[in-house]
């Protein structure tokens, strides 16, 4: 197997693995069959996952350096704007610009 063949095989294997994880629930469950437990999980998973994803994204922040200050500041801008204006794009772009400004200073 030469290098390109190895890469192609690896990409294919990754594609299949990834697709399988995403496909699993659709194969395991039939929709709408009055499965109260499943509906309960479906309804409650998004808020839990969102909380987990936010913490996951912030887990690398070094809270002993100045990084914590500008991260908190950028977060405050994002949260504040989102609560006030409910415009996702505006909140994300503003928070990111603030963050980039401090990182690149």
């Amino acid at each position, binding site marked *: 197997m030469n290098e390109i063949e*190895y890469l192609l095989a*690896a*990409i294919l294997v*990754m594609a299949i693995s990834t697709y399988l*994880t*995403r496909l699993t629930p659709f194969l395991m469950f039939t929709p709408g069959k009055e499965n109260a437990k499943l509906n309960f999980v479906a309804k409650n*998973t998004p*808020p839990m996952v969102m*909380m*987990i994803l936010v913490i996951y994204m912030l887990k690398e922040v070094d809270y002993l350096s100045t990084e914590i200050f500008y991260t908190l500041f950028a977060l405050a801008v994002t949260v504040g704007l989102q609560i006030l204006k409910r415009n996702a794009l505006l909140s994300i772009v503003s928070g990111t610009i603030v963050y980039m400004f401090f990182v690149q200073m």
Partner: protein
Amino acid sequence: MIKTALKTSLPILFGFIPLGIAFGLLFQELNYPWYFASLMGIIVYAGAAQFMAIGLLAAGVGLVEIAMSTFLLNSRHMFYGIAFLESFGNWNLRKLYMIFGLTDETYALMTSINIPKGFDKKKYFFFITLFAQIYWVLGCTIGALSSEILSFNTEGMEFAATALFVVLLIEQWIMVKRLLPFMIGFIASFIALMFFIDHMLIVAIIISIGSILIFRLVNKSHDE
């Protein structure tokens, strides 16, 4: 509808373009032709797994190990589809594609938005999924094509992904307005961080779903 879907998907653009560029830049270090980075964006389409793959490919690890690491890293996606069992509609190519495109970002966005009146949910979700993947492939391609220094300093742009999830967390709060799932997610995250930092996401999701089911069980027995 396509226009609205495009507008709704824009927050993902700001997360995916810089992240894709970062991936493309790293991919260059493997010294493969640039279009393989695009190919990965097209047929694998998994942010974290693609980053991990760079290390695995550089080390030349075996295909079985690549398959298993990818599966483990993406295992959290097994819980995402549950939210869309009905809304993705009947089995057809479109549904197969929407399942393929179910990333952290599309899941987060599509569970947090209201569908405008008169829109076909399936089609609306399809276009959001499609646009999101286009952004990702674009990012990967730009990163893999650009020489070492981009004319524009992208440092810190990765914060857009964090900001996207924060915004969607707020939207979830506005939709759900019950403290319990947020508390569970919060506590589960810290437990996972303390004991399973390498597999934090999947462990936190399993703990969360397990805990909320226990709460449901306890509440039910109270009612009876």
